């Protein structure tokens, strides 16, 4: 950094985290927030493509999608929704605690958020395992383990078998599972990245890097975390809930 630049701004009392191309900490933080939102908007577009694919196929094959939705574990899905909402709350509290300079509370909230994120991933792993056991992994994603669910006969209530809603075919149910694994898989990847980011933020918080004047990294990581929560807020009803009301008509 050229030393001559330092005379351009009044940096005598400036915060050590202030980069030379910003006037003050507020401007720097707002620029960072704006940049994060531009990134999140590209993420909206990215997930939007998958939501569009889901919409088209659900419209075309409603019975198969209802069949597949009903086979997902609604209790695990709802639990994960609550876990993520609680984690969003603890994340928001972590941002607040940093803003008012309560470092200890902030670290506690960050650790809680990470634990909740890992809880979500753990429950997701259990769900994926259930799908594996029921031979619902589409195509040959796992070599030698084809999509081959058992179809339940009339009156058979075995939850591991597929209860076809009238009009549904096993092939179209497989289509749902492609979309299910693509969407929840990408979402889980974002969760893993989020847990990684929050781990770094927590370490920095422990090292006293943040203060009421400088907390932009905590806030921006929080934006990412809340965004991932929002994706799940849409995934949960679309994947798990739509078609539930047809269960009684089997």
């Amino acid at each position, binding site marked *: 950094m050229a030393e001559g630049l330092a005379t351009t701004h009044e940096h005598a009392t400036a915060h050590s985290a202030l980069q030379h191309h910003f006037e003050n900490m507020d401007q720097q933080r707002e620029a960072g927030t704006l940049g994060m939102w531009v990134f999140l908007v590209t993420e909206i577009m990215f997930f939007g493509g998958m939501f569009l694919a889901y919409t088209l196929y659900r419209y075309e094959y409603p019975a198969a999608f209802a069949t597949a939705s009903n086979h997902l574990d609604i209790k695990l899905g709802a639990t994960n929704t609550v876990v993520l909402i609680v984690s969003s709350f603890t994340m928001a509290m972590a941002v607040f605690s940093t803003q008012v300079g309560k470092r200890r509370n902030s670290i506690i909230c960050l650790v809680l958020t990470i634990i909740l994120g890992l809880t979500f991933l753990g429950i997701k792993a259990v769900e994926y395992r259930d799908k594996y056991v029921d031979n619902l992994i589409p195509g040959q994603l796992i070599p030698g383990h084809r999509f081959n669910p058992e179809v339940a006969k009339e009156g058979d209530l075995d939850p591991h078998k597929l209860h076809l809603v009238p009009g549904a075919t096993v092939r*179209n149910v497989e289509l749902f599972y492609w979309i299910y694994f693509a969407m929840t898989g990408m979402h889980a990847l974002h969760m893993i990245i989020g847990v990684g980011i929050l781990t770094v933020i927590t370490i920095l918080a422990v090292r006293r890097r943040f203060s009421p004047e400088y907390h932009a990294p905590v806030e921006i990581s929080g934006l990412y975390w809340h965004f991932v929560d929002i994706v799940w807020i849409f995934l949960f009803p679309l994947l798990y809930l739509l078609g539930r009301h047809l269960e009684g008509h089997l």
Partner: protein
Amino acid sequence: MSEHIVYPRVYVVIFLALLLGTGVTAGVAFFDFPGPLNAVVALTIAVIKATLVILYFMHVRYSPRLIALIIAAALFWMAILFALTISDYSTRAWLPVT
């Protein structure tokens, strides 16, 4: 020109509203609404929940208008992409899945 700090009281209210929304959406999913209303109800609740997260947890309500503009522009553009794609798919024959 310091930033706006959102206090825990607000976060708690939003948090409870989100939990309520989750409960309601899971509960009404088993209810057989006429026609496509099940999807409409589920999506309406999801949009409300997402809006609460964006406005309060993500501070957009207290942020510069520019950020709200970016989000609105993105959603508007996404709506165009959805509309054009759906109009295409819904007016063509689908090949049968074999």
